[in-house]
């Protein structure tokens, strides 16, 4: 096999494609479509994933979460944890389910001076940094309860066998449901820690500690030290939470891949059909080539060249279409009820994957028909007209 022959086979492939413009176009389209599906779904998938990870991190504002089922961690523990090397910050909160006028919410009670820890976006009013029986609720809840800033609501907490109730003033209304609260299907309510401790009769105690680590590589080390300082606690690292969410997203991804696989199958069948037709039409030509001394690899090259060209064009076209298409998929997903915006950025991995798969599948599906014709004896090829 020499360079000039490669040039020749390239010419032959291009001319054969231009003779059968429609057929080649449709085959390329099938390949492009499958690549586009893969790229679009993958791009959107990666977008969702990165958004989820970002949001989880933003919500937690911490790298390690220490939790107890009951409100039983002394606040002193928070101070101890702060002394551990690499710990940048730590905050102890009470995190319990509660009811506001019959509506289930998740109450997060934060020390008054640390109310800003969770980066809540206040639309009206302010964070109750001075303490007192005050609440921050989101606009959705405010709307459905029909309350405004300064209104009073009754909040009840069922803690074990106890049922406690108290009136709280709405100090601020935050931006509508956050990403995570939607994702988890819950509503968060923020209150100063002291009144909630009083209400539960758990002064000086908390059940959640959020820990921020200055060096992300030391998270495991910090977690180990905490385990020593406070052996009974359940320690969750941020990435563990992300892993759980990721697992859900993986299932979604798997389904998207199934859709992609169908596209790829269609492309493979298309390529196979095109090559089979191309071979059938040119069987006598193959006979001629063989009689004048073309070797098996020559014949193979002539046909595989056509497939490679179609795969390349289809792949490139598919990448472009896929990237554009990902914006449409995003709109579609959002219209289906996803309530957050998905960032669309080019995902090199999706491009490479789509392109490689398209080319590989095209070549693989062409191998069998080409192999069959390569093996045919020149006499037999010549007999077919």
């Amino acid at each position, binding site marked *: 096999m020499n360079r*000039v022959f490669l040039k*020749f086979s390239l010419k032959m492939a291009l001319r*054969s494609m231009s003779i059968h413009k429609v057929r080649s176009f449709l085959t390329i389209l099938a390949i492009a479509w499958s690549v586009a599906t893969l790229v679009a779904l993958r791009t959107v998938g990666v977008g969702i994933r990165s958004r989820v990870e970002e949001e989880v991190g933003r919500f937690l504002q911490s790298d390690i979460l220490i939790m107890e089922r009951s409100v039983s961690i002394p606040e002193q523990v928070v101070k101890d944890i702060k002394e551990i090397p690499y710990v940048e910050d730590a905050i102890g909160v009470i995190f319990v389910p509660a009811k506001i006028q019959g509506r289930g919410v998740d109450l997060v009670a934060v020390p008054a001076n640390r109310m800003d820890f969770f980066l809540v976006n206040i639309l009206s009013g302010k964070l109750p940094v001075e303490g007192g029986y005050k609440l921050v609720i989101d606009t959705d809840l405010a709307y459905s309860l029909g309350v405004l800033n300064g209104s009073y609501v009754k909040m009840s907490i069922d803690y074990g066998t106890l049922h406690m109730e108290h009136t709280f003033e709405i100090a601020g209304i935050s931006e509508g449901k956050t990403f995570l609260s939607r994702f988890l299907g819950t509503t968060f309510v923020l209150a100063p820690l002291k009144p909630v401790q009083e209400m539960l009769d758990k002064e000086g105690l908390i059940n959640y500690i959020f820990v921020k680590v200055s060096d992300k590589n030391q998270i495991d080390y910090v977690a180990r030290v905490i385990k020593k300082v406070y052996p009974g606690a359940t320690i969750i690292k941020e990435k563990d939470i992300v892993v759980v969410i990721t697992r859900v997203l993986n299932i979604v991804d798997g389904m998207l891949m199934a859709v992609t696989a169908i596209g790829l199958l269609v492309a493979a069948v298309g390529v196979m059909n095109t090559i089979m037709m191309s071979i059938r039409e040119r069987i006598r030509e193959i006979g*001629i*080539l063989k009689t*004048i*001394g073309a070797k098996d690899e020559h014949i193979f090259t002539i046909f595989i060249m056509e497939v490679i060209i179609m795969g390349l064009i289809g792949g490139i076209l598919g990448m472009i279409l896929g990237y554009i298409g990902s914006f449409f998929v995003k709109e579609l997903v959002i219209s289906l009820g996803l309530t957050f915006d998905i960032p669309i950025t080019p995902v090199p991995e999706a491009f490479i994957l789509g392109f490689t798969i398209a080319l590989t599948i095209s070549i693989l599906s062409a191998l069998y028909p080409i192999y069959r014709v390569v093996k045919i*004896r020149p006499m037999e090829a010549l007999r077919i007209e």
Partner: protein
Amino acid sequence: MSEPVIKLKNITKIYTSGKGIEVKALDNVNLTVYEGEIVIIMGPSGSGKTTLLNIIGTLDKPTNGRIILDGIDVTHLPEKKLYNIRLEKIGFVFQFFNLVSTLTALENVMLPMILLGKVSEREAREKAEELLKIVGLGDKLHSRPIQMSGGQQQRVAIARSLANDPSIVLMDEPTGSVDVISEAVILRLIQILNKYMGTTFVIVTHNPEVSLIGHRIVYIRGGKIYETKEIPKINLENALDEKSIVRMQLYFLKRELERIMRSYKRGLLTREDYQYEVNRIKKKLKRIARILGEEIE
């Protein structure tokens, strides 16, 4: 005697059909083809002539016997080596659809050279151009097969068969699907190539016109050679060259003129008749002059 190019020794080919019935396509065929020969293989349909050609061309293997091409016993060569034998030693021309449809005439002729890979692309191109000029298609270099007539395609196929200077060119009904004029052109071309390039041809045909250009006709029937006829060499060009023909004509015209003048002197011809005869001879002389490329009054 020149060197033998093809030697077939006791070639037998038996085809076995699906039901186990054996058909003897060739039965103990012995044939030697010498360098520079045009051998015509004739016979009725199904007589085994195409099988014979395919066996010579290494496209088919004999059941028994040996084939020696150019001194190489190719009978049991593996397919991989046969490719090169075909490339270097054999040129093929079939009845129709000889060309690769996606390549131009020039590229079709270049193809065997490129497959062999011994010459550069430029050299292959130059040689292909020359070969196409020889077959009279210097103006069709960049035409695709679909843009050419059957006869033209056939001539491209002939040019291609010569690309690697083969020892033999095998033709299966080369004029089988072209018109009469193309046939004449192709046959003349074969003669010219044979005479000036020394190419050896083995041509399978059942067209008697084709057989006229051969040096030897091998009749085959029922898989057996039953007659080999040497065609006497009539070299028209040497036997009757231009000068002698003109000389002969002039000689006879002179005799005729003398005869007319004699008759006129004896009063056997009227003046009108005499004038008429002289004019007739003048006309003939003018024609000869034209042949010689001169103008006379």
